């Protein structure tokens, strides 16, 4: 078995509005479009990776929130109805997804060896969180690749961004190690927004784009600062400024996804590709790809 490989890493946000706006058959509500800039960003991401085959998707979702350790979906298939408890008017999605249990178990075991509290989730009644479903759909609407789904340990809430980042950097390292040991080609996804201050009211027509904008200038400045680091290969600066960013932009990076992603990619010093940026109910969202395939190290 050859060495496993990370094909690409992506920042792949999960606001359900994007699925709602697309009107896929799995989702019950019907929209008149909306948030095209981001949806086209996802299209460009899919196109960018269409020439690169891979075996599995590893995804960390901030909406599977665990306070006791980090958990992994541990059964081969989950299907059901995902209703967003916050935006149930927009997202009621019938899902049917496969899990790469072998890879999940491998990452779990590596994390346990590193001293992280971890658990496999093996209850068949478990309802997969809507963040996973949303990013899973937008990244791969055919659902033809198995996923590894990792919960978001809420260590930021318990301790601090610094402690969260320490845990997530370790989790990223063991994720990378397990992927390489698996012999598989994998895409890793951090499912989170950037600035995360919402509007607290909703337009009568949720997809009314005349109402959509960032909640404040400060949020915009932070989003652009982080995106600029991504576009210019300065991942380490993102990690360095994560505490300030997370606090001041109320960023969804508090869930650890972005820190974990950058660590899994070994803190890339090459540019990420910005496929799209847009706001969703005031929050800042970017679709970014780190094309690892273009930066493979020739070990021969």
């Amino acid at each position: 078995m050859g060495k496993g490989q990370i094909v690409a890493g992506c920042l792949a946000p999960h606001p359900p509005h994007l699925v709602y706006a697309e009107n896929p058959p799995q989702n019950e509500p019907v929209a008149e479009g909306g948030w095209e800039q981001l949806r086209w960003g996802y299209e460009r991401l899919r196109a960018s990776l269409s020439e690169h085959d891979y075996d599995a998707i590893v995804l960390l979702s901030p909406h599977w929130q665990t306070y006791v350790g980090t958990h992994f979906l541990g059964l081969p298939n989950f299907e059901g109805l995902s209703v967003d408890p916050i935006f149930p008017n927009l997202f009621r999605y019938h899902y049917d997804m496969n899990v790469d249990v072998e890879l999940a178990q491998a990452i779990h075991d590596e994390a346990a060896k590193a001293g992280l509290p971890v658990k496999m989730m093996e209850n068949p009644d478990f309802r997969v969180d809507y963040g996973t479903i949303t990013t899973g759909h937008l990244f791969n609407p055919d659902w033809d690749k198995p996923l590894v789904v990792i919960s978001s340990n809420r260590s930021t809430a318990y301790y601090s961004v610094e402690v969260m980042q320490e845990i997530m950097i370790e989790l990223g390292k063991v994720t990378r190690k397990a992927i390489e040991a698996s012999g598989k080609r994998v895409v890793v996804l951090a499912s989170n927004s950037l600035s995360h201050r919402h509007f607290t009211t909703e337009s009568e027509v949720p997809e009314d784009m005349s109402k959509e904008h960032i909640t404040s200038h400060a949020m915009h400045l932070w989003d652009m600062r982080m995106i600029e680091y991504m576009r210019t290969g300065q991942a380490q600066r993102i990690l360095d400024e994560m505490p300030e960013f997370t606090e001041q932009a109320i960023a969804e990076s508090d869930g650890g996804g972005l820190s974990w992603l950058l660590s899994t990619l070994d803190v890339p010093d090459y540019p990420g590709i910005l496929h799209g940026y847009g706001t969703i109910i005031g929050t800042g969202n970017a679709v970014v790809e780190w094309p690892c395939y273009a930066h493979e190290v020739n070990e021969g």
Partner: protein
Amino acid sequence: MTSGEVVASFVVPVHPHTVLAPDQNPGWRRLRDAFNDAAQTIRDLDADLLIIYSTTWPSIIGHQIQADPNPEWVMVDHDFHDLGSIPYSFNIDADFAHAWNEANEQRGLQSRCVNYKGFPIDVGSVVALTLLNPDNSIPAVIVSSNMYANRSETTVLAKSCLDVIKTQGRRAVAITAMSLSNRMFTDFIKPEEDKIHSLKDDEWNRKILEFLEQGRLEDVGQLSRTIHRQIRVQKVVAFKPMWWLSAMNGNRNDLTGRILAYEAIHGAGGAVVHIDPTSTGIGDKEYDEDDVEFFHGERGVLEGSDEAEIDQSREAERTDETSVSESGPALWDPTEAEGSVNTDAAPKPVGAYPHARKVGDMLFLSGVGPRQPGTNAIPGGPIHDENGEPLDYDIKAQTHAVVNNVRRIVEEAGATMDQVVDVTTFLVDMKRDFAGYNEVWAETLGTVGPTRTTLAIDALPTPIAVEMKVIVHMGE
């Protein structure tokens, strides 16, 4: 008719251990027994409605109220999935939910009902309803905990709920699904190893319980921010349920508290507490935060112009009490002759008169319309614009608002709605509005039984469609 009331309140823990694994730890068993005790108390009180404010259902867009009459699914906890699954099928009072939603809007809150198959009822609500209402014999309603809501918003949420309880004459039980200290162990533990996460958390929990046992619920509410900083994980939902529960009990410190159990659940503080509205006669009320009847909003990011208008209106109130409102006559401070009864919870008069005047045991109200205190907004919309052009409006919303304004004035006088003996109603469009007005009347004042006269008139001073003149007999 007796007006509705909160006949009991409960604080209950949220984690699924009490349902799925009570016998794995003696403390979890004691909590389960306390749930059973609470359920029996609720049955003995002959309650007809359970109202749950759940900290494990966060919301962003205002407050969400469950309105599916029979939500069914299987709940699995995100953390404690290995304990098993909890199938549920609940009996939700959708009519109450819709009425509460409407009352929220009338008091200025962002609110909506949710009624979707498969909606994920949160773990706190599932645990509470499963154990407190095991046979589903009592209808329930669940409200979310808005992650951005402050104290005033949460207080108004309770007051709008009380509006409906009183209007519908319900015997309600208010329940907060919440932990005290919510710091869990961040690693996996064996059931027998469970204890409160730290001595500090335990000491704070015991202080909270001491207050609650003394019936000092408002004191706990006013300490909410401090408690949150001291013993709470700083996640999105703060220690705000005590704001709601205290407001549901009239912000009192003289209630009767009973601690049924206090134990650890994976390190967090879990307690079952019964709060009886019976006054103990003790507990001074030190109410050092402003009370609020109507939520003016402090965000309104999407509706910047509206917020500016509200601010402008507030500014006008502060600087010139008789300035002309945007679309109507000047507003006045109510007069204060002997026996006058006035309240900030009712709209300002449009002339020199009080909201009501007491003579002996009789109370006479000035004509009351639907305008909202503070903003002058007209629920259901004005009947014409500033140029006199007719607008479509909702007579039922206006009538509900009139009745709520009447109630606030009546209660300010120390009377109750069931003491209203005579009402004269003025409608500006009898043909269009009588049916809608009559329907709301039947649901509200009609259940009290005052005599009534309904007149068609040409116009009222503000762009409203309905006004009531009310007489109350405050004697036995």
